């Protein structure tokens, strides 16, 4: 299996080409093509998982070709412990989302073509090892997403407050926001490019491995203050994607207005790119930036704000999908907090949280889609007593909700607990108070999930929904695998942890070493 990463990345493009040749009335053929190509991608991802060497922090399955030699830009792909869970998640969610998109009716051909293109972009981001290539994929992802939200999302409407909201609004908001962040990233990328030299040829390079090697840094990059600025620029670029307060307002709009499958992809994969970027680029390339300890505190405090602010906002929402969207903000805050302590526990916990949030929130959005398809609204207060009418659906929702509120035995519990423990036990920074305040988010999260569950499912059955059909086989097919993963990783997280820990522990060592011995003289 040569060039497996190229295959896994560009398989959906082949699918796009095929779909373009299919007449637009053969809807099932289009769906099947999409399913087959994402399915093949999933098979490749599983193959990667089976053949991945967990014992080394090196990049694996590397492919390196010269692409634009005059600028030393390479086509350089490779994965390590940080990328493999994301690759798995992307392949898995893409496959599932094809089935969640089965009911799409409006210009189906365009939808699936865009979807597969998006898939390529996402996969590329997680596999690219050349900064330029990374950036290209990062931007490639944007365009299909724009159309998917804009065209297939909800139609434009005028809200009572006079704002025009809806799919097109959300799409352009998402697009501009991300583009805004990309500019910062581009600047940082170029500064690094011009100040890093390839150890062999001496020319400038985008090669991430060279960028990570501090020995190659020269020019203005030798100046600590400049490094801080670059770190900050990168942080803004990635923070928008996470999204970190106060750059988060694109998220509720985009998630709510997008069609179900796209919400799943947005929350499940796209949000992870922000934190992935930090772990892949900011931390290893500028490991000493944390010496300016305000960055660590800043990150932890932003994590804290995300956790509590997201949770409180979620509690006030009347729209179920918006509630889930805000819960994502809250949960991504835990990732941020976990990373900020620079400990093995926290870092591993954060990456586990990225994966677990991906599966958990995907399940939540799929479930929202299920009820929306039936009742054609998502107002939490508009339901009531559905547990009597739809017991299987209620069981699925309660599983997803309990996963969301971090119940032991379900995957996000593990990642949340270790993120908190990691931040609390930080040897470099005293994040103890911040962490303890953050844990209050657990209570708020429990409160809004249970309250929502009660309003939707418990109590007397709302007579309006006395004959709501129970969840169907296709929907269960998308949900059950997620449910199994959530339970399995909650009981036995080792398969995921083993995959990531070698690389992440290495990363922690690198960052720690660059930041010198204990800063605050703790312990």
């Amino acid at each position, binding site marked *: 299996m040569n060039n497996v990463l190229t295959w896994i990345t560009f398989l959906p493009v082949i699918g796009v080409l095929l779909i373009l040749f299919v007449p637009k009335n053969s809807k099932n053929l289009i769906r099947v093509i999409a399913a087959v190509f994402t399915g093949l991608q999933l098979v490749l991802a599983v193959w990667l998982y089976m053949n991945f060497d967990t014992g080394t922090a090196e990049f694996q399955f590397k492919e390196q070709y010269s692409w634009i030699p005059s600028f030393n830009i390479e086509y350089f792909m490779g994965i390590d412990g940080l990328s493999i869970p994301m690759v798995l998640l992307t392949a898995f969610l893409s496959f599932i989302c094809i089935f969640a998109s089965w009911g799409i009716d409006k210009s189906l051909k365009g939808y699936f073509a865009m979807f597969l293109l998006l898939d390529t972009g996402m996969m590329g981001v997680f596999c690219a090892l050349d900064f330029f290539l990374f950036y290209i994929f990062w931007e490639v992802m944007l365009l299909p997403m724009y159309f998917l939200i804009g065209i297939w999302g909800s139609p434009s409407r005028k809200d009572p407050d006079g704002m025009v909201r809806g799919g097109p609004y959300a799409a352009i908001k998402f697009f501009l926001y991300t583009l805004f962040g990309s500019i910062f990233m581009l600047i940082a990328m170029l500064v690094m490019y011009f100040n890093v030299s390839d150890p062999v040829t001496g020319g400038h390079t985008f090669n991430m491995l060279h960028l990570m090697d501090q020995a190659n840094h020269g020019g203005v990059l030798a100046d600590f203050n400049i490094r801080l600025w670059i770190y900050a620029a990168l942080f803004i670029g990635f923070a928008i994607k996470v999204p970190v307060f106060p750059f988060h307002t694109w998220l509720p709009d985009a998630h709510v207005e997008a069609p179900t499958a796209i919400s799943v992809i947005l929350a499940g994969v796209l949000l992870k790119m922000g934190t992935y970027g930090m772990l892949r680029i900011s931390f290893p390339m500028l490991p000493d930036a944390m010496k300016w300890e305000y960055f660590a505190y800043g990150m932890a405090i932003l994590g804290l704000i995300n956790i509590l602010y997201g949770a409180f906002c979620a509690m006030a929402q009347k729209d179920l999908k918006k509630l889930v969207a805000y819960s994502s903000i809250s949960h991504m805050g835990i990732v941020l907090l976990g990373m900020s302590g620079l400990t093995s526990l926290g870092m591993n916990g954060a990456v586990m949280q990225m994966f677990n949030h991906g599966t958990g929130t995907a399940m939540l959005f799929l479930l929202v889609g299920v009820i929306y398809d039936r009742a054609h609204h998502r107002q939490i207060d508009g339901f009531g007593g559905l547990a009597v009418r739809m017991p299987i659906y209620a069981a699925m929702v309660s599983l997803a909700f309990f996963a969301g509120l971090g119940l032991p035995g379900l995957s996000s519990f593990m990642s949340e607990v270790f993120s908190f423990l990691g931040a609390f036990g930080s040897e470099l920074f005293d994040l103890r108070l911040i962490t*303890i305040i953050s844990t209050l988010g657990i209570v*708020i999260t429990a409160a809004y999930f249970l309250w929502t569950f009660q309003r939707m499912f418990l109590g007397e059955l709302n007579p309006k929904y006395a004959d709501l059909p129970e969840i169907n086989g296709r929907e269960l097919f998308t949900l059950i695998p997620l449910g199994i993963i959530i339970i399995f990783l909650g009981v036995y997280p080792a398969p995921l942890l083993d995959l990531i*820990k070698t690389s992440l522990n290495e990363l922690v060592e690198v960052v720690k070493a660059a930041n010198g011995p204990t800063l605050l003289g703790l312990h």
Partner: protein
Amino acid sequence: MITSAILILLLPLVAFIIQIFVGKRLPRKGDWVSTGAMFAALALSVGIFIDAVAQYEPNNVLATATWDWINFGPVHVTFGFLIDNLTAFMLVVVTLVSSLVHLYSIGYMHGDPRYNRYFAYLSLFSFSMLGLVLVDNLFGIYIFWELVGLSSYLLIGFWFEKDSAANASKKAFITNRVGDVGMFAGIMILFSITGTFSFNEVFAAVADGHVGGTLLTVAGILLFFGAIGKSAQFPLHVWLPDAMEGPTPVSALIHAATMVAAGVYMVGRTFVLYTPDALLFIAYIGTITAFIAATIAIVQMDIKRVLAYSTISQLGYMMVGLGTGGYTAGLFHLTTHAFFKALLFLGSGSVIHAVHTQEMDEMGGLRKKMPITFWTFLIATLSISGVFPLSGFWSKDAILASALGFGMTHPAHMPIFVVLLLSAGVTAFYMFRIVFLTFTGEPRDKKKYDHAHESPLTMTIPLVVLAVLSVGTIWWGWVEHMLVKPELASYGSHVASAVEHAAEEHGVAHSAHTIAMFSSVVVATLGILLSAVVYFWRKISADAWAEKLKPIHTFLWNKYYFDELYAATIIRVTLFKSRLFAAFDLKIIDGIVNGTGRLTAAFSRLQGSIDLRGVDGAVNFVARFVGYLGSQLRGLQTGNIQAYIMMALFAVVLLFVFQQF
């Protein structure tokens, strides 16, 4: 032994899985799966217990086992079992009460549409509690702790069509979560310093002085927050009375063996971690709880609610026992309480089953109709009131002795004992109030009385078994020998200064014991007598006194207004904050974003107009100017070629002329 431990843990879990997925299709909806699993677990637990008794060593560790579970590289999290005397005791209590509740439920829940699910949840509950008892580390205890919360959520809200049940289950879960967060913070502190979750390793680290002083006190108090939630201590006790919305056997389970016992067990398990300050905190919380709950119980009319408050009160006793250093007393009371409280609840369930009401106003005179229920209920009542020689007497007396001893060494803390003693009298009073109101006198609701009948055998057998267990005079000797207060020093390699307040108390303990015993018997008798005067002989009218003490009565009737207080403060503030944040998000943050968008648009419009008027204006001006010039000069273009030639000629001539000059 480890094999039996694994089996004890797995049996209910497997039963749960079977019940959830295929329970509906099994014969009898699979109640025998859960019940059988529980009885098997009981048999195994008794086996372990017999081993423990046979060895008859204080604080004997019977077996341990650990497995690597989550490996981070530098940090390992293990999963393991720790089976010592305490575990053996708890295993028996949990499995015994649980299996009796299972048995009882077969009769009680008969015909419920979600019968199989009920048994599934019961199994899950037992599984969680057994896991909590068996694990050897803080992380594991936290996991099972939360699972207990989940099971209680599911069971309290079992009849979720009722809004009150749905509310109660939510309240229970969230209130517990509040405590759990504190506990988690405590675990974080201990873990961040010791780098391990394992009890023994944490204890060893504390004994070696790696952690101490204020930090350890804080960690201990935070850990205890978990127990405040689970064991319904003041100020997080509000969920427990509401939890009565669940089916009555569930209440029995929650109140006796599983949920509330978890907190006490946890404090007992981690006893050596608590500094004197932390223990004092525990003792005072327990005292306040014991008193508040006992007084509220006096005026409640709902039989289950009275029992609920009595549970809270008794849990307060246990905490005082632990807090004043009466480790053995506290845990022994946990055991005895488990039996008589389970009996009380199952007895009340039997009554409710018969008369279909929980209001004591509508009962009365049931003694003749339900003899087994009455006699077993009476035994339990005597026991909880602390009448010699029933089990409650021994355990409560031990606690009182411990509190008195503590008060004698630290006179400033004498009020603990006084309040406790007072509460003991109140306990006897309101417990007998139940007995008199329910079983004696004239039936107040004739129709319900006529309808009443003794419960089926599956329900009465558990009552009898529990009644036998509530007697148990012989228990005390064993317990005193086998569960001895652990010394921190025994865990470490060198002696640290963390906890040392036991030594001087030893001397006073004996004299305290005698005083406590007599005083407790006296107050119990007084309480029972007063109760009899008011509710049996009816010499004093309860209603008249209630009228006379109207403000106090209202205050107690409204449960000290805790619910209202929380609704007005914490809940309101939280909801307000959430709405505020959401509005802030929509209006301010998103407003800024949209404002930026609008501003950009406005700016671009301005730019556009500048472009149109200014830049483009200049371009157009040039064009227009040239056009004007052209229009002026067009007259020259006659189109007549000969005229052009003339002009050319003229120009040439002119050139020549100019050349001359």
